[in-house]
């Protein structure tokens, strides 16, 4: 290989590196290595002056390769690649040695650190010599977007994109969009009515010319890659012909069968077997719940069909399978409420007057089962005292260690609603810490303090109907240690509300596998970067917003949704995007068609051509992990920018001080 001219730049990073590593020594030493044209050390390489050094040397000394020994490439690789590019050097002829995070910050041993720095620099030098110029890959972006989940996040994202003139497919599992927000009564801290602010948006989404609304539908398959996904959706049979249905609701009226509505009414109310989850449902068409429909169970009834004025009922209707192309995907699949049954000592399901937060939301909702009256389980008695237990299933090693973020606020809201509807009723909030970070939130807390809510700082130990003291008879007793007065307290109340936390959807793991993206131990989808990129995922072209990424309240969800939409819109307007060229490619000449690599790719980027008996990597699908490269027994798959030559020379370089050239050893 003809000699390269490598420039090596060792950064002091103030004293961050120079404090531990003898940077001058490293630079001088580097200067003496093979292929190294010039080696310098400098206070701050990332400063514009530092970058100028590089650019000037490239121009004046004709450097063909550049190595910067400084911080982590995750910090400044972009910066220095930029510098090279400006000076006309292909950015992929640059390599970085991480002597800060991986070295100077990790030890105080100056000698060892300097030795290690030399190893890392030498590795970079020997590697960079084998690096080759690469060009970024252009990818066409299909202007359509798929949004999964029709809650407030999905609706927001959909409208943002649609209003900007882009087509959106909005897919919702339930018969209507609206999500959890549609179940709520008031929203904190402003207390404006949830439905009043949500339904207009739902209607917009339902009627928008740029939005194809696929409710009562689920994603079956996702193929393809950024810019060009192929989506397969199963549109479940409603047994209602949408074209003919006017949404008059007569069918619902006439249907003789009532079942408990565990979804929209959170189990607190009933619905018919042919139903719309709620009056303002979008779309307006009802669905038949086949599990419970007398016709489907016994072949009789047909009341809905008989009374339908437009003959819109079709019991034979079958699921539809739709296929379409999109360029980007936004996941807004929302959350599940923590199942309070998992904490038996709180008695939910056993003690009649213990309710979950969602049950209570429905209860106080004017359109809910009690018409907005706060009743005990008997449906008639108003409670004289209500206990609200915070952090149910949250901040608890036994269930979820994280804070669900919204419970403190909605618990305060509950307290307020009880005061409002039942003046004179006592309200006790059992909290661990009061968490009210947000605009107007702390003020709301103070308002509640003034409204006379009793705040007891302590996690409730149990809720029991086992009376012990006078006055406890026939009540629910909440026992807790009041950590402010350091005493055990037993508060007898009529009604207990469990502020259950937010959990990832039960099927989020399957979803993340369907979309080939990551989700964390708790089941929340993993963002590309926890701070700097909370809306993108590790998979190009797939974005996340709302509670599916982590517990969130409405404003945060809306903000994230808009952000995701903006990111997508940006890509759409670009039309084509440039992708990192770190991709695999197969030398078909040398491919024996053994098919080992065929199962290596999680993105199905490797296809086998029966006719030519060779495998091929679809570059656009490839994400550059290199798993197939390592697997290929013929060694003929090349991983651009991580080739065998490059890594092997890096290994040799990094071992410069312990290496001994294999020589022809005479004799034994």
């Amino acid at each position, binding site marked *: 290989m003809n000699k390269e001219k490598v420039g090596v730049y060792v950064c002091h990073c103030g004293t961050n590196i120079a404090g531990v590593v003898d940077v001058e020594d490293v630079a001088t030493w580097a200067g003496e290595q093979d292929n190294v044209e010039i080696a310098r050390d400098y206070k701050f390489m990332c400063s514009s002056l530092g970058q100028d050094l590089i650019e000037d040397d490239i121009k004046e000394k004709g450097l063909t390769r550049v190595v910067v020994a400084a911080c982590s490439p995750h910090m400044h690789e972009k910066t220095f690649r930029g510098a090279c590019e400006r000076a006309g050097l292909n950015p992929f002829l640059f390599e970085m040695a991480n002597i800060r995070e991986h070295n100077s910050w990790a030890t105080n041993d100056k000698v060892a650190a300097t030795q290690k720095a030399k190893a890392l620099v030498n590795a970079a030098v020997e590697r960079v010599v084998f690096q080759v110029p690469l060009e970024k890959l252009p990818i066409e972006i299909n202007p359509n977007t798929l949004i999964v989940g029709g809650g407030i996040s999905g609706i927001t994202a959909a409208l943002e994109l649609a209003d900007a003139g882009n087509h959106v497919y909005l897919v919702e599992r339930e018969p209507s969009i609206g999500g959890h927000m549609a179940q709520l009564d008031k929203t904190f801290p402003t207390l404006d009515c949830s439905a009043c602010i949500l339904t207009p948006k739902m209607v917009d989404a339902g009627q928008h010319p740029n939005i194809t609304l696929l409710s009562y539908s689920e994603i079956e398959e996702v193929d393809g890659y950024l810019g060009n996904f192929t989506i397969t959706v199963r549109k479940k049979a409603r047994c209602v012909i949408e074209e003919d249905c006017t949404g008059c609701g007569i069918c619902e009226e006439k249907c003789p069968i009532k079942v408990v509505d565990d979804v929209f009414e959170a189990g607190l109310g009933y619905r018919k077997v042919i139903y719309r989850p709620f009056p303002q449902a979008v779309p307006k068409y009802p669905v038949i719940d086949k599990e419970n429909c007398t016709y489907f169970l016994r072949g009789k009834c047909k009341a809905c069909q008989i009374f339908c004025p437009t003959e819109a009922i079709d019991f034979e209707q079958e699921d539809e399978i739709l296929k379409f192309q999109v360029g980007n995907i936004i996941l807004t699949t929302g959350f599940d409420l923590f199942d309070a049954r998992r904490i038996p000592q709180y008695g939910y399901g056993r003690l009649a007057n213990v309710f979950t937060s969602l049950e209570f939301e429905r209860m106080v909702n004017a359109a809910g089962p009690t018409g907005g009256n706060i009743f005990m389980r008997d449906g008639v008695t108003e409670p004289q005292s209500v206990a609200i237990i915070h952090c149910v299933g949250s901040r608890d090693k036994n269930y979820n260690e994280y804070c669900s973020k919204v419970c403190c606020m909605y618990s305060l809201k509950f307290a307020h609603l009880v005061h409002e509807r039942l003046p004179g009723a006592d309200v006790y909030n059992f909290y661990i810490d009061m968490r009210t970070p947000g605009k107007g939130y702390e003020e709301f807390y103070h308002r509640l303090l003034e409204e006379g809510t009793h705040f007891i700082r302590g996690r409730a130990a149990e809720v029991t109907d086992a009376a012990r003291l006078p006055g406890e008879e026939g009540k629910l007793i909440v026992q807790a240690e009041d950590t402010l007065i350091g005493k055990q307290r037993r508060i007898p109340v009529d009604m207990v509300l469990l502020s259950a936390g937010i959990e990832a959807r039960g099927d989020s793991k399957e979803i993340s596998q369907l979309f080939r993206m990551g989700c964390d131990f708790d089941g929340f989808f993993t963002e590309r970067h926890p701070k700097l990129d909370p809306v993108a995922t590790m998979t190009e072209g797939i974005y996340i917003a709302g509670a599916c990424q982590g517990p969130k309240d409405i404003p945060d969800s809306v903000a994230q949704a808009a952000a995701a939409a903006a990111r997508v819109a940006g890509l759409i307007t670009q039309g084509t995007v440039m992708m990192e060229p770190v991709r695999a490619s197969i030398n078909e000449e*040398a491919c024996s068609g053994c*098919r*080992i690599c065929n*199962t*290596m790719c999680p993105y199905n980027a490797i296809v086998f051509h029966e006719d030519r008996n060779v495998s091929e990597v679809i570059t656009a699908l490839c994400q550059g992990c290199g798993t197939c490269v390592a*697997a290929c*027994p*013929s060694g003929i798959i090349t991983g651009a920018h991580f080739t065998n030559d490059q890594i092997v020379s890096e290994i040799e370089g990094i071992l410069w001080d312990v290496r001994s050239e294999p020589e*022809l050893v005479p004799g034994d």
Partner: protein
Amino acid sequence: MADSGKPTLAMYWASSCGGCEISVLNIHDKILVVDEVFDIVFFPCIADFKTKDVKGYPDGYIDVCLFNGAIRNSENEEMAHLLRQKSKVLVAYGSCSYEGCIPALSNLTTKQATLDTVFLENPSIDNPDKILPQTSYKVPEGELDIPVFYHTVKSLDQVVDVDYYLPGCPPEPPQIWAVLEVIVSALLEGAPLPPKGSIVGARDVAVCEECPLEKHEKSITRFYRPHEITPDPGLCLLEQGIVCMGIATRAGCGALCPQVGIGCRGCYGPLGDVEDQGAKMLSAIASVIGVGDPSMEEDELEREIQAVVDTLPDPAGTFYRFSMAHSLLRRANVNGGNGKGEAK
């Protein structure tokens, strides 16, 4: 060049089984052409020349020397140096001289263990006095020397400079003839020789290319040793859990073994872009182990995969059956790590 004006040919066996010599005769009537074209000046298997004759030749007197067999002892090495000195073109002929082959499997253990096995422990041995070879001993006639038995088996190119490699255990006759043809035409018509160091008589693609068995995506849930399974005819052996080195081995043999239901042993050695045949084979075969998915608990995951790995009894011996001496590590560590090494 011999006085006859014919180019001179030599063939020598170092540590080998003799199969390579047979393979040359396997080119059938072409052998007559060889005899016609060449003057054979050293060929212990078929002609009575002595080492001293070779020593007598001027340097470069031998036009082509086919050297087979690994470097196992001091004599092998001595002859390697001698023949290198006397030959224009030195060909590492066959797997042993190219990459160590079966003899080099003893690199997985110690010299002592090898000698003990051969001279003491082998069931067919009768050696009550536990007599082991001595490098030299006295007899009435005087002192005799026996070659020193090396600790580590080496390939030819690890002791002398080699011009060409002709892989195979043994090389396949058509390939041999093809190579000889090239050399002959080079010697007679001055046709160009392939670049020094190239591997001749083999292809730059894996055995699968020549293997007619049907191949699919692979997912192995347990490995079988040949006696444990009757393979489905016509179906890729690897897919059936039989270790077949074809995926990681140079083609040229015509995929003979897989076609009779025996997994490729890998005798043609690694492909051009591979430095270590064993490691590469390991990587490929482990990659397609068909158990373990991301949703599993970490320890469960490890248990499941380990269970499959356990069905492959001797990875080193299997993956390095022919290439041990030429592999990156060349031999087992029997003394490093405070003697905690596994090999015994």
